[in-house]
């Protein structure tokens, strides 16, 4: 496939996705639509880490920290304002600011990549501990009680922008969530293709070289980290909108682990893969939940270990590679270089 074919295929895929999102409520029952809404909000979360890990080279073990902050920011803001419009904005801003502060601390402190994982993990635990111990009546923000381990129940869901009297129906919530998933995907595609995206990939590949060309790796990584935090915060708001509830387990390590599994399964360095991995794993976990033979941790653990050992590239890149090999054997030898090296749309910097 040439690059043009690829772009056409991708545009078609996006078009299909838009049609599916638009028509799904007409063909599916409410329960399935709700289920899909959950998957789509989690897929946005998956994209947030797919971006900072896959394209910024920053492996955060605490992406759920930003997700949780977004969820709590939404819950607190919507409880106080009574309108979801500013609440959604805050759900993006608060985690972005937090990511900015944490990222500044980490990247400008020359803390190595390994320690970054340890620090993000620890920060997630701190947030869990703090929020978990806010059970008393004294822990209120405005009119919203944080509720400690009980969380915040009966949160007002999304309304039409600036019209709190018009609360969205579940079908509408699906359109919003599915639509935002597509918007975030397209936005990230554009970003990765932009100058900033190319510089981010250069920094991921070789920080020293990027600095010697005049790019500040710290600033670039901070930018990537903040964007990732903002998207995770949006996902948090979408998630709270789905369940009308938020509790401290949103900051759990197991959620952070699951995001990493989605991406590993789907293919690191792509955007489609992490969405696919997220939906597959979520579906699998929900199926395990309905029957008692297997523990979901057990299955997730086996999947993660299996992929790392046997299919480290993940599903999407492995399939793509298989197709390329097939095409190669079919006898399309146009160049002296292996076809795989020429098929990659390098200017986009994305492998899938």
């Amino acid at each position, binding site marked *: 496939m040439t690059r043009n074919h690829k772009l056409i295929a991708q545009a078609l895929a996006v078009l299909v996705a838009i049609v599916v999102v638009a028509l799904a409520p007409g063909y599916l029952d409410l329960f399935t639509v709700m289920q899909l809404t959950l998957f789509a909000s989690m897929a946005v979360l998956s994209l947030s880490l797919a971006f900072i890990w896959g394209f910024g080279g920053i*492996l955060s073990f605490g992406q759920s920290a930003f997700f949780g902050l977004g969820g709590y920011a939404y819950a607190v803001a919507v409880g106080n304002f009574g309108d979801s419009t500013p609440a959604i904005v805050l759900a993006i801003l608060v985690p972005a600011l937090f990511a900015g502060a944490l990222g500044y*601390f*980490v990247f400008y*402190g*020359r*803390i*190595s990549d*390994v*320690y970054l*994982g*340890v*620090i993000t*993990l*620890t*920060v997630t*635990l*701190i947030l869990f*501990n*703090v929020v*978990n*111990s806010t059970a008393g009546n004294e822990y209120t923000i405005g009119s919203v009680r944080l509720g400690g381990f009980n969380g915040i129940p009966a949160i007002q869901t999304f309304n039409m922008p600036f019209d709190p009297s018009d609360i969205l129906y579940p079908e509408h919530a699906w359109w919003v969530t599915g639509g935002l998933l597509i918007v975030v995907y397209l936005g990230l595609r554009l970003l990765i293709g932009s100058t900033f995206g190319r510089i981010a990939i250069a920094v991921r590949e070789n920080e020293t070289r990027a600095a010697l060309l005049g790019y500040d790796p710290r600033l670039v990584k901070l930018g990537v980290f903040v964007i990732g935090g903002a998207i995770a915060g949006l996902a948090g708001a979408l998630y709270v909108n789905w369940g009308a509830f938020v509790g401290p387990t949103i900051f759990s*390590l*197991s959620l952070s*682990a699951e995001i*990493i*599994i989605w991406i*590993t399964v789907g293919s690191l360095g792509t955007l489609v893969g992490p969405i696919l991995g997220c939906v597959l794993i979520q579906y699998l976990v929900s199926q395990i939940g309905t029957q008692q033979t*297997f*523990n*979901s*941790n*057990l*299955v*997730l*653990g*086996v*999947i*993660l*270990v*299996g992929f*790392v*050992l046997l299919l*480290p590239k993940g599903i999407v890149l492995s399939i793509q590679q298989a197709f390329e090999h097939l095409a190669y054997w079919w006898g399309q030898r146009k160049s002296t270089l292996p076809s795989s090296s020429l098929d990659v749309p390098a200017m986009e910097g994305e492998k899938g």
Partner: protein
Amino acid sequence: MVGQGCKGASLVPVSGLQSGLVLTSYLKGIEMDLAVIVALDVVNGAASLFLLCLGLAIIFGMMRIINLAHGEFVMLGAYATVVSANAGLNIWIAMLVVAPAFVALVGLVVERCLIRFLYGRLIDSMLATWGLSLFIVGFVTTIFGNTTKGVPTPLGGFSVGAYRTSYYTLFLLAMALVAAGIIYALMRHTRFGLIARATMQNPEMAAKLGVNPARIYMMTFTLGAALSGLAGGLLAPVSGITPVMGAAYIAKAFITVVGGGAAILSGTVAASSLFGFINQLGAYFTTPVYGEVILFTSAIILIRLLPQGISGRFFKGQL
């Protein structure tokens, strides 16, 4: 909470010189007792933290394998102790022999089936051990359910003035010292220690000298696992035993080893003493939950200030 009460009491105005003196000396006695108890708590915190970290210090500090299943190794040690003690085995044997032996065996299997394919692949080894950790949690939950009957704390207690504490605290301190001594002797004075340290620094060179690096890696990983199991066994009587208990340990252990820096023994001793102290004092003045929060926050700040860890600054080139 108790401490604040006492401080409040000493401020109560008393009538009459005589009774005032008596009360003051009485309160001073209480404060002395309290100081002893708090000191014991701090020592206990530091010793537990050190025991918790030692296995990880070997595996991460020496082998640069980020073992995210470390907490689960500790958990398995605790379960091995609880299960064998509840089956009628002597508690000391369960803690000191069964727990490390069982987890060493688990470590050996894990190294042979998983870790050995991932040397030099830092991120992959992180992911795989995280997968392993989920697997172990799921496996233990499937067999034992979400909670398990614990074991009583052996050795009983003693009084310091109005307060009671247990001899087990002192035992943990002794065990921490013994473990540190054994590891020091093993690494510094035995053939295995010398070969292991040489192999971690330069596997090719070690191989040229006739050492089989694969075997040394295997033995070192198993040793780290055994120490994690021992920690689990020793902490079993004083912890809530659940399949997810490891999650609480992993961040603490990692941040301590990272804070300790390259010198695995002196660094880990220094970092666990410092963090144990901060944790217990923080818990004493606020709540145990905030004690942990204070521990984590100060650890992050320490790593920011000393990226090479405490030993990178103060004990360069030591063990």
